[in-house]
């Protein structure tokens, strides 16, 4: 008995180390992956440093409304005369944080349900699969529009809702993956040792899904950013200051009719694109690491 636990922890730690090593390898050897990693790191550093380095203008300045870029305001000012660059610097952190939160919730739900469902099989499996089918036939954004009427959604609540809503898609992919894993010898060995299902799912199966999880994490973050920004754009969510809110404000203030203040809407749009493309590149680098056909 003691032997067995020692074996499990040892293999676990070495596996994690190997994984980290492989991730680093992928990121440093893949040009796009490296670029994405740098971009992501830059955005994170900027959002951490911004509140100190570039504080938001709290007061409006009526003499500087929608001004073009100048030495004082390198991206110009918004409809209340506040500096746009400070808003850009401060606006990314929250978006990233809550996208990550939503992705974590989605991954935990998807992996747990998918793996247990595939391992257990039988009626539960069939029921969950059917429910996932039903769930996936409700279009996502319209559903979110309806749901957002229920609570005054704050960022945290929205992240939780988004995480929970994304269960079905992930459940299906994880389930399919686990079904093929289930046939492997080491799972059979674990069953023969009469281990609990929880042990098999979290200690035997999840480590083998790490690559898959990493890729889906970046996918979920992307779709969460899409929903967050989309709902803000529709004017449904009164969120705090972030890039999506900037786009919405710029839109409702009609900056598209004024070519001088175009940066007010263009800057956050470009930033969101950069954030998403960095996520894509990092995700792709991780996928290359974990996809067995390319590992050798």
């Amino acid at each position, binding site marked *: 008995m003691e032997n067995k636990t020692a074996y499990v922890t040892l293999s676990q730690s070495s596996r994690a180390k190997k994984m980290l090593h492989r991730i680093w390898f992928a990121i440093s050897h893949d040009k*796009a992956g490296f670029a994405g990693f740098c971009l992501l790191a830059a955005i994170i550093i900027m959002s951490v440093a911004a509140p100190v380095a570039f504080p938001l203008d709290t007061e409006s300045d009526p003499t500087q409304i929608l001004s073009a870029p100048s030495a004082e305001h390198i991206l110009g000012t918004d409809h209340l005369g506040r500096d746009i660059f400070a808003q850009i610097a401060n606006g990314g952190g929250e978006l990233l944080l809550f996208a990550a939160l939503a992705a974590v919730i989605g991954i935990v739900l998807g992996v747990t349900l998918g793996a247990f469902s595939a391992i257990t099989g039988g009626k539960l499996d*069939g029921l969950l*699969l*059917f429910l996932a*089918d*039903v769930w*996936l*036939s*409700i*279009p996502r*954004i*319209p559903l979110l*529009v*309806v*749901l957002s*009427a*229920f609570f005054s959604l704050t960022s945290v609540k929205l992240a939780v809702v988004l995480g929970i809503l994304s269960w079905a898609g992930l459940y299906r992919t994880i389930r399919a993956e686990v079904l093929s894993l289930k046939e492997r010898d080491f799972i059979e060995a674990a069953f023969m040792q009469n281990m609990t299902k929880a042990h098999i799912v979290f200690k035997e199966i999840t480590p083998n899904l790490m690559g898959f999880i990493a890729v889906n994490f970046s996918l979920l973050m*992307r779709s969460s*950013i*899409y929903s967050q*920004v*989309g709902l803000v*754009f*529709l004017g449904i969510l009164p969120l705090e200051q972030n890039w999506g809110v900037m*786009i919405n404000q710029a*839109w409702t203030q009609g900056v*598209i*009719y004024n*070519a001088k203040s*175009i940066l007010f*809407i*263009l800057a956050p*749009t470009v930033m*969101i*694109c950069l954030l*998403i*493309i960095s*996520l*894509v590149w990092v995700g*792709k680098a991780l996928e290359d690491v974990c996809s067995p056909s390319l590992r050798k």
Partner: protein
Amino acid sequence: MKYLSLAIYLLKRLLKMLLTVLLVTSVIFFLVRLMPSNPIDRYVEDQMVQYGITYAEAQNRAAALFSMDLDKPVFEQYWEYIGKVFQLDFGNSLLSPGVPVMDIIAARLPWTLFTVGIGLILSFVVGIVIGAVMAFKRDRWYEPLVTGFASFLSAIPDFLIAICLLLLFGVVRWNGENPLLPIGMMRGTYSMQVTPGWNIEFIADVLRHGMIPILTYMLSQVGVWVLLMKTCTTSCLNTDYVTMAKIRGLSSGKVLFSYIGRNALLPVTTEFFMRLGFIVGGALIIEQLFVYQGIGLELLRATNGRDYPMMQGIFLMMSIAIVLCNFLAEVLYVALDPRIKTGGAGKDGK
């Protein structure tokens, strides 16, 4: 025997589809009823704010307008609604009293289908061609550029593409004079001065107004098809049967179309039909952006006014479209792939 099992399979699938739609309808029904505030409150609020009438008067007006009894127990309303849905009666809209929900949907849906559908088809055709070409030119310098751009397009949210297009065409003054297109052309479905009908003027106007939305849908989807087609073609190129066909000395055209094309198109076509289902419901944000009078904008309006029957009707349409297209994708996959034989058993994802 073969036909019997096929019939049983189809029947089972049909039942499952019906059950799915029924469940979605029920979920949406209760969700919509549970939403805070209700149509009458919303209407009363509106009247008080807009016309400055008293609360009591506004409520009298509301009572006269809304024939629906919202004080009945929810479950009673639910059974009544489900019963009516089976008779294909979706009720009347609350916001435009007396107009059946289906009439409004029928008026709005063509606009959505027109823009999103054409965008999807265009992106499919363009994407497949580019993807297939890129699979053959994997050693050229421009291949990473094209693939990278495709993955960029497929990743960024479609409404950001829409904003970029809007800025590009409607706001920036390239030659110091006017923007490329008048911005009024990007709002609404057609100009006020033209009369709807089958005349040249109207059709041209509709096309002009639909141009930017269609371009948006096309750009946001084309990346997906390029990447998918490239992956599928590449994996087909390396298979034994393609090598064998080449060794046998078949013409390159025959290899390209019958051996590679047919196999590579299989997953792509399935994906196409899966996405087709979402075209009814996938255009909310872009329609709001361009004030395009489609089904998505109607849903937003209905949600703001708590127009229960309208919301239920639109959600029903959307889920029916998705379920139906998933079914089509499945059937098509079986029909196109000669390797799969429909057996009654073992097809339920076991």
